């Protein structure tokens, strides 16, 4: 391997802003080796005039990687965690590297993880799904049984209710991976939950469901029957392949548009009842404490939200002024995204961005704003509007309504301050 590899900033786990700056922009050029804009050249480029190794010698044959891996030059594209957030990695979180992705689908290996008792390792042959409670006939299914039901394919975002939860008191984390990375967007193959419930025969008195996981936290949440009968899926594939263990292999619940904690992984049981259970994750956690000391509960739907992923603190502008792509993602638990506006002056003036790629209900949408950067500082913001007419609020509007201790459901507008050198920082502005 020749020495002139491109630099891979921050290949180690957990990237600090300080590190990023030394690795990239401030040190000048480390990043630029990897990202060179074509400028007028006076001497010929040896990459063109000299024959390169990859052009002369044979590369790996087929089967070098029976399960294909990303290019070694993409090693920095990984999930990262914020160790201080939780006491232990078995009840913790890591974040999707949104700033490295494009389009609308999140690759399986990059979907953020949140577990409460570690990743359960379950041989599908040993997995069972039980339906009990207010049904005519309690049933047990094997994975093979489940795969005989009619299937559907649907693309949905999953967002943790605590996404952006660290930003309630003000700008805290430098990078959209950390401020917004508890979201992913995946195509699921699964069975409409109603088919499975009808198989057991739902009693008229059944109003609530309690899905339960098989992991060491035996995760549970109460789910109203209307939602269960509407669009929930019992999914066993993501993006065409089996669910990843960390996403609930062999089978998980999909609760479109609703907070991620309800999408029970390693789904092993669904009980039907006539009242909610008030489990730990809907009392102690996932309730939203207001400034007056009272708390909102059963805040299931995820609000309309967007964030600019590039440029952002982990993805500064390295090419200097001129033609520039601003891009980001938007989603809403209420349906499709109708429009995304972008501001480069901190919300004084807005331009409507271009949405490209599939526009699906309760799925991430990709937007672009292409413009000519004059090299002056920018205050980048994005504002999403969904098909129902919900408009993404400012963070200050949310604080005025709720205070700063609600942890969950922060869908406020994010600001990135892009400086003349192209570096970007998470800020709050007047």
């Amino acid at each position, binding site marked *: 391997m020749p020495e002139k590899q491109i630099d891979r900033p921050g290949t180690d786990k957990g990237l*600090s*802003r300080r*590190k990023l700056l030394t690795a990239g922009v401030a040190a000048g050029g480390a990043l630029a080796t990897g990202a060179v804009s074509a400028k007028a050249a006076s001497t010929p480029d040896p990459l063109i005039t000299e024959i390169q190794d990859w052009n002369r010698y044979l590369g790996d044959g087929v089967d070098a990687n029976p399960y294909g891996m990303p290019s070694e030059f993409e090693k920095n594209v990984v999930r990262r965690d*914020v*160790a*201080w957030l939780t*006491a*232990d990695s*078995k009840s913790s979180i890591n974040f999707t590297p949104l700033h490295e992705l494009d389009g609308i689908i999140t690759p399986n290996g990059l979907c953020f993880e949140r577990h*409460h008792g570690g990743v359960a390792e379950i041989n599908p042959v040993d997995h069972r799904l*039980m339906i009990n409670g207010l049904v005519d*006939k*309690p*049933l*047990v*299914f094997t994975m093979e*049984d489940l795969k005989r*039901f009619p299937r559907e394919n649907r693309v949905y975002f999953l967002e943790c209710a*605590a996404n952006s939860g*660290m930003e309630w008191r*003000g*700008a*805290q984390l*430098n990078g959209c991976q950390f401020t917004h990375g508890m979201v992913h967007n995946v195509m699921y193959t699964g069975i409409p939950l109603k*088919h499975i419930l009808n*198989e057991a*025969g739902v009693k008229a008195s059944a109003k609530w469901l309690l899905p339960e996981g098989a992991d060491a936290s*035996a995760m*549970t949440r109460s789910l109203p029957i209307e939602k269960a009968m509407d669009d929930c899926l019992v999914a066993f594939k993501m993006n065409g392949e089996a669910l990843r263990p960390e996403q609930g292999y062999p089978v998980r619940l999909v609760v479109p548009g609703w907070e991620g904690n309800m999408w029970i992984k390693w789904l092993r049981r669904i009980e039907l*009842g006539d009242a909610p*259970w*008030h*489990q*730990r994750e809907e*009392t*102690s956690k996932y309730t939203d*404490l207001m*400034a007056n*000391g009272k*708390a*909102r509960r*059963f*805040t299931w739907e995820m609000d309309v939200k967007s964030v600019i992923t590039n440029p952002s603190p982990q993805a500064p502008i390295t090419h200097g002024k001129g033609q520039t792509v601003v891009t980001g993602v938007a989603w809403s638990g209420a349906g499709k995204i109708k429009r995304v506006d972008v501001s480069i*002056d*901190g*919300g*004084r*003036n*807005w331009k409507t961005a271009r949405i490209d790629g599939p526009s699906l209900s309760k799925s991430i949408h990709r937007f672009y704003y292409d413009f000519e950067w004059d090299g002056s500082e920018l205050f980048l913001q994005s504002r999403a509007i969904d098909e129902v007419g919900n*408009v993404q*609020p*400012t963070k200050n509007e949310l604080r005025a309504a709720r205070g*700063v*201790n609600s942890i969950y*459901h922060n869908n406020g507008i994010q600001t990135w*301050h892009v400086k003349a050198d192209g570096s970007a*920082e998470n*800020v709050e*502005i*007047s």
Partner: protein
Amino acid sequence: MSKSLKLFAAIGLILASTSLAQAQDADAGAKVFKKCKACHAVGDGARNRVGPHLNSVFGRKAASIEGFKYSKAMSVAGSGGLVWNDETLAAFLTKPRKMMKGTKMAFSGLKKEKDRANLLAFLKSFSPDAASAAAPETPKKQEIAAAPAPTEPKAKPVAAKDAPIPEHGVFHLGRAALVEEVKAWDIDIRPDGQGLPTGRGTVAQGEPIYTENCAVCHGDFGEGTGRWPILAGGQNTLTDERPEKTIGSYWPYLSTVYDYIRRAMPFGDARSLSDDDVYAVTAYLLFLNDIVTDEEFELSNENFNNTRLPNEANFFADNRKEEPQNTARSEPCMTDCKPGKAEVTMRARVLDVTPDSKEGEGAGAIE
């Protein structure tokens, strides 16, 4: 096993033994040990915690610390001659449950060779006899080599062709759940007491159970050690700048305490307490939260509903749609929406709690 797979396993072995010769760094190992700290102590005065203390672990027979309740798997391995040394520890720590099915060490493993080597160097510094214990021949080598070769998951056609198709439902899939099966899994409890098992326990009985199984993480008084959750106190802090949400200050229902402890605690050893133990620990948590004051107070399925938690009335249904920013549905402004130039009022850099920045934990940690 195919030829290439055998070769692969052999290479794996060579790698496993040579890598130990690599430079090991006890300081770096101290960092890795953070992953063990929740459960293990080393150094002066180290006591058993969730796991046994790890002083002089090199050369020590597995499951040999008096007074620690090992799993059957660990005890059997110990009496079968398993001695901790570089090789056996490396094998165990790579994937505890792979090497020892049935160990109660709830730890998924140290994937990185380097982390393991450094950690062992660190542990060695607490094992005065480490040098003399230099790897006696153990059966572990074989176990590494015999690491299960990837089996081709072959779908076996079921011989149930002749079984009658069930009559229930639309698709006639699945089978009837047996009463014992439902009983084994259906352990949830509702605020009205539905689901409570028969049983009882007093505050006084709960104290030793709590001290032995819970206090390492949650603190002797429920105050929480390190970043482990706080379980008691915090009354009247919900409107403070830093509210403390505990069973006593925040949780609406006692049923949730029983339900959650029974399904998920102690962390890493769920479902290990008896129903009576859970009643006793729940009673003890009421005591730590000053909700009951009598040490002879007994909680049972019969009197469970008599105890209410103080914050029950302070929860309300989702009304986000009524918030000002959601009710004012005018067309969003597009030009000259705010006066003056944007000024920075706060920057993330000031806090610099982004991962890897040395100092600091963030202000608003999520829970």
